[in-house]
């Protein structure tokens, strides 16, 4: 299952020097052709697809899949071209070559649009090259985030620090926590990605059989994972105490902070993955297929998410009333800027109203078996904040804010991460191009703040100085449905939902929205977890 185990010969491709890239490309092509010739045209029959299930870096199919991935995703044009020609040669020999499944990095966004980004934007290209050199791959998440290079840079830096740099947790534990967190939302994309990484850094494959297979210590984290993912406001001092109490399988404070940051990072990243419809990596399971196109056209993930065929038509059916939608929104923003109403009771109204927004179709889709084994208690999900009967006090943002309190706590126990997260939150919150759909020079701060606060509102975090009436004015119902689904139960997102909000906005703007959703959610979860830890410490 390993992506690059022992595959030293692929490393040279990440080099910035065109010579060494050429050299290792030469090596690879020789090796591939040698193997292809060995097999020859005989193996055109049944043997091939069977072999594809056994994966190892020396397996020809594995190599071909990787070549295919490189031919599409490598940031260097020379490598892309060369890979294509190697694949062509292999096909000429008579060996079946794989082809991509799905629709580019995202199922929601046309591939063309995404890949165009790096061609236009030098900064994006530079970041892609860096990532490719560091990881030997360029994952689909990064490609989609490439719309916003400023953010992508910060995101990758943070993620790299969390996973690779100094920290209290061991490397494989970090990936395993990532798996746990992503599995909570049945995000098979992230789970697969990290299962590979987990094995690569020497993780025990027994752990992957389920949480029971993992050490006690990580099992204890399951409860926190569950609560944080779905109802973070229920995290209390007692949970923290339970994890930290001195015994054999206890956590240290520093480890716990690291784990909490990882959990929240991957919960929110799962939101992004579903929200943008990230498709499986080309070289991973479900990313490519060896059968000829005519045989079948299915993708495991599509089935799991209940949208087998892309319906392009659907998105266009209502384009007629599009322009006025944007204008109406801008009109509202202008109006709101002019008149300030009292806002004391709006939060309560918004809170109750957010409950009325049903998060997508309520029918419980059965999670795919493969992913569900990484978490327990599958029935536990988001429940609306402040239902009748439960009295959870509102979280006042002024009493425990990220800037004043959260940052200090994180930075104290896990140096530098507080700084990285702080930068990431700030970049996200302040990111703007002053455009809205086709309009230029628009101050979008009000809209961004509305989205951010709406998400925090769903988690019961209240800003005293915000008029929650703005949310109702600015966010229409289909957008609210989308936000709520992405944030609370991302696995239920469909392409229809993605298409139906803000129909005339650009894809890059929708990705921007997703970044806001992701970071706001992460901050909300973090705030609850950190508040509980602070409570424990005092």
């Amino acid at each position, binding site marked *: 299952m390993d992506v690059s185990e022992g595959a*030293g010969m692929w490393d040279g491709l990440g080099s910035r020097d065109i010579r060494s890239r050429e050299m290792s490309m030469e090596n690879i092509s020789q090796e591939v052709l040698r193997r292809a010739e060995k097999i020859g045209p005989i193996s055109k029959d049944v043997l091939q697809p069977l072999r594809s299930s056994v994966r190892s*870096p020396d397996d020809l199919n594995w190599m071909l899949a990787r070549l295919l991935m490189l031919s599409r995703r490598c940031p260097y044009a020379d490598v892309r071209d060369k890979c294509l020609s190697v694949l062509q040669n292999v096909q000429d020999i008579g060996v079946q070559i794989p082809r991509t499944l799905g629709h580019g990095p995202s199922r929601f966004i046309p591939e063309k649009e995404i890949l165009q980004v790096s061609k236009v934007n030098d900064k994006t290209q530079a970041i892609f090259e860096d990532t490719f050199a560091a990881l030997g791959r360029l994952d689909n998440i990064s490609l989609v985030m490439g719309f916003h290079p400023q953010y992508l840079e910060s995101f990758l830096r943070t993620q790299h620090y969390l996973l690779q740099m100094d920290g209290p947790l061991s490397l494989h534990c970090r990936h395993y926590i990532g798996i746990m967190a992503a599995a909570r939302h049945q995000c098979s994309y992230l789970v697969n990605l990290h299962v590979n990484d987990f094995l690569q850094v020497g993780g025990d494959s027994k752990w992957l059989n389920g949480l029971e297979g993992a050490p006690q210590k990580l099992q204890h984290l399951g409860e926190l994972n569950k609560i944080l993912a779905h109802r973070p406001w229920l995290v209390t001092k007692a949970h923290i105490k339970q994890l930290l109490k001195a015994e054999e399988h206890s956590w240290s404070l520093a480890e716990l902070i690291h784990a909490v940051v990882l959990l929240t990072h991957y919960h929110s990243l799962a939101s992004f993955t579903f929200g943008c419809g990230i498709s499986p990596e080309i070289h991973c399971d479900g990313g490519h297929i060896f059968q000829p196109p005519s045989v079948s056209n299915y993708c495991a993930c599509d089935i799991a998410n209940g949208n087998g065929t892309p319906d392009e038509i659907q998105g266009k059916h209502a384009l007629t009333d599009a322009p006025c939608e944007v204008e109406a929104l801008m009109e509202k923003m202008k109006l709101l800027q002019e008149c300030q109403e009292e806002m*004391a009771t709006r939060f309560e109204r918004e809170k109750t109203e957010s409950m009325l927004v049903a998060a997508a179709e309520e029918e419980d889709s059965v999670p795919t078996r493969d992913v569900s084994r990484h978490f327990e208690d599958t029935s536990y999900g988001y429940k609306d904040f402040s239902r009748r009967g439960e009295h959870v006090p509102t979280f006042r943002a002024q009493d425990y804010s990220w800037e*004043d309190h959260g940052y200090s706590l994180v930075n104290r126990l896990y140096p530098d991460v507080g700084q990285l997260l702080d930068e990431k939150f700030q970049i996200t919150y302040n990111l703007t191009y002053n455009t809205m759909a086709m309009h230029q020079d628009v101050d979008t701060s009000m809209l961004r703040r509305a989205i951010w606060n709406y998400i925090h509102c769903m988690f019961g975090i209240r800003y005293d100085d915000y008029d929650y009436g703005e949310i109702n004015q600015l966010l229409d119902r289909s957008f609210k449905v989308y936000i709520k689904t992405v944030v609370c139960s991302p696995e239920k997102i469909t392409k229809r939902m993605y298409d139906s909000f803000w129909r005339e906005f650009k894809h890059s703007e929708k990705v921007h929205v997703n970044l806001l959703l992701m970071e706001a959610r992460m901050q909300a979860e973090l705030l609850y977890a950190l508040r509980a830890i*602070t409570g424990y410490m005092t």
Partner: protein
Amino acid sequence: MVKLLLAHQKAKAVGPQDSEDQATRGHSYQCSLQQKMEKMARVTTALGSNTISGCTMFCHLDAPANAISVCRDAAQVVVAGRNIFKIYALEEEQFVEKLNLRVGRKPSLNFSCADVMWHQMDENLLATAATNGAVVTWNLGKPSRNKQDQLFTEHKRTVNKVCFHPTEVYMLLSGSQDGYMKCFDLRKKGSASTFSGQSESVRDVQFSIRDYFTFAASFENGNVQLWDIRRPDRYERMFTAHNGPVFCCDWHPEDRGWLATGGRDKMVKVWDITTNRAKEIHCVQTIASVARVKWRPERKYHLATCSMMVDHNIYVWDVRRPFIPFATFEEHKDVTTGIVWRHLHDPGFLLSGSKDSTLYQHKFKDASRPVDKANPEGLCFGLFGDLAFAAKESLISGGGDSNRKPYGGGGDRRYPIFFFKKPDLTEQFAHVSSALSVFETDLESSRMDWFVKTARRYLLSGKPFGELCDHNAKVAKELNRPQVATTWTMLRIMYSDPGSLTTATGISKGGSIPLMNSFNMKEIAAGGLGSEGRLDRAKGETRQDSTHLDPGNSLLNNNDENEETEGSEGPADYLFGDAELEDDDLYPMENENATAEEAEYILPQEAFPLRHEIMDNPSVPEHLQDKVDSPHVSGNEAETVCLTPIKSFSLISISQPLYESHLPASFFSPVVREMLQHYAEAGDVQMAVSVLIVLGDRIRKEVDEVTQEHWYTSYIDLLQRFKLWNVSNEVIKLSTSSAINCLNQTSTTLHINCSNCKRPMSNKGWICDRCHQCASICAVCHHVVKGLFVWCQGCSHGGHLEHIMNWLKSSSHCPAGCGHLCEYT
């Protein structure tokens, strides 16, 4: 080198000496206004001259406090928070609730306060900053229950700070999260002017106490701006004060140019802004983000701080001595949110409110002084064994040289270097003085070369006992460790039965025995063995003397004389002096001459015919008579005639019968055991274990299992640290303790992957059962490798050791052609 700054300071009270300062600093800036302000200040002094008294006391609030403020006459304090807004009177021994300003059944958010300020001119006027962005003023003179006076809702976000002008009654300033500062004229309904901080959130605003028109604002991005109240279009000056948000700032009450700021980066900085560029003149590093900072009245260099997270204490710092708080108040159980000095001109009382819902009055006399508990000395080792020592200057100078000598002279290998840290100006000013001494280690001498070499060259098995001893003695000697060398020789002598000894020495060229013996005594004496040591001494003596007496060998005599100067002097000293000579006296001398002497030693050794021993030992009985006489002889030769002969006689009379009966080896066991223990405790566990192994059964029973095991494990651990894997393995193998032996049996499995299919190999040998190919094929000769197989861990290609070695001489790439740059370690 470790630099250890240990500040000690005579906590000299800094009196109000700043009036001169002010005169010298006097600026012609707005002269008339300044005069006016100073007059005002004096007026307040006069007002507050009634003495303040009280004690450390507290009261419970109903809810966490966010901020507190005192009334001008220091008799009342207002506490504000999300759910509390009350006025307390400060009485002699308690707080008394005077007024609850939070009225109404369901108080609006306007009552939820982030900050509160009591006007310093008008006792009835209060202002609060509400979390919803409102600025509210309260008039205590109002007859109704609700004292709310005016409401300004001009800010869009939470207001973080409100501040009244110190002398102007109607001027109120506010700073908000929305990035704006607004100046309100209380006579009007609305703001007089708005100052924009360029969309950065304002965390604190403070009017200058001395300059009428100036105020400072601190921002979330780390900047501090200075504004002129008359010019709302643009700030007068801006500088970056902190990394991250600046949570608070405070003007110095007396020095016009000083501004203190505190930030999330855990620092308090004092800025001098009279110069063209704001200059940082003091910096205090705290342990948590700084939430509030307040200058202490009447003490020019003191300020109080509290933190926003984690740390609940209030600290009072002397900015000239930033490493240790001057005083600490440790009463609160949760973070302190507001601090204020009770009176403008009284440094003795501090009030504080906290998240733990208490309000405290701290009496300065009751504060704890961390300096008293601080260690006045510090000691630290550097990476390369250098030692740094810092201490109060008084401690060091008091002790003088005699005090320091032990540090320098303690290790004979260390060469002390003294230097005094050049006193920093600010330190000097604050009467902080400490001295730092660094003792540098001579790199050469601290190396463990001898350990590695000894470990490598010692023979522990595989040869007859005597030979092993001799070999090891020689090794030790060559490494310039005479004591160890002599010990080995002695061991040989003690445990070899005479017959085998002869042959043994006959084979090896260990003719150095007499020489060794001459050392023997020194070593034993130095080693400090107990009474038993004497026996050996005596024995050594007799033996040596017997050589002198030996008439049969002229060759020997020549050589013997050569060393007699050494040999006879040694024993004479030690034996008759009958004192334990300290190492220091003995060894330095030896060390100095070591190189010179070595040459002398070696030559006679080589030339020394072994027959001497051969003749000597078998004929022991016959020589007995001579030996009785030997003291006389030696007495003649050495100049020690005068020494008490009785003593030497007694010694010999003891040794004589023992020697005669061919001392059983077991007789020496207690001595050897003690010797081993001595070595182990002196840190030379190598010697202990080596002897243990070489002696084997001869000694094993004498030392209890646990100790043995302990020695073994420490020695093995040492060996492994020096990467002497082979030696450590040999030691493990040779050990007789089962617990040690089994170390070799653990983790002996080597997991390998097939180089073809990269899957783990089952234990079927050379064939991978998955891809049915020979897995271990040499990449160079393409034959199956049996025997030594080396491979690259990066690409798992490899082959015969010699083939790969040859290959790597010519190319650094993998011979299999995979393109990997192979690395072998």
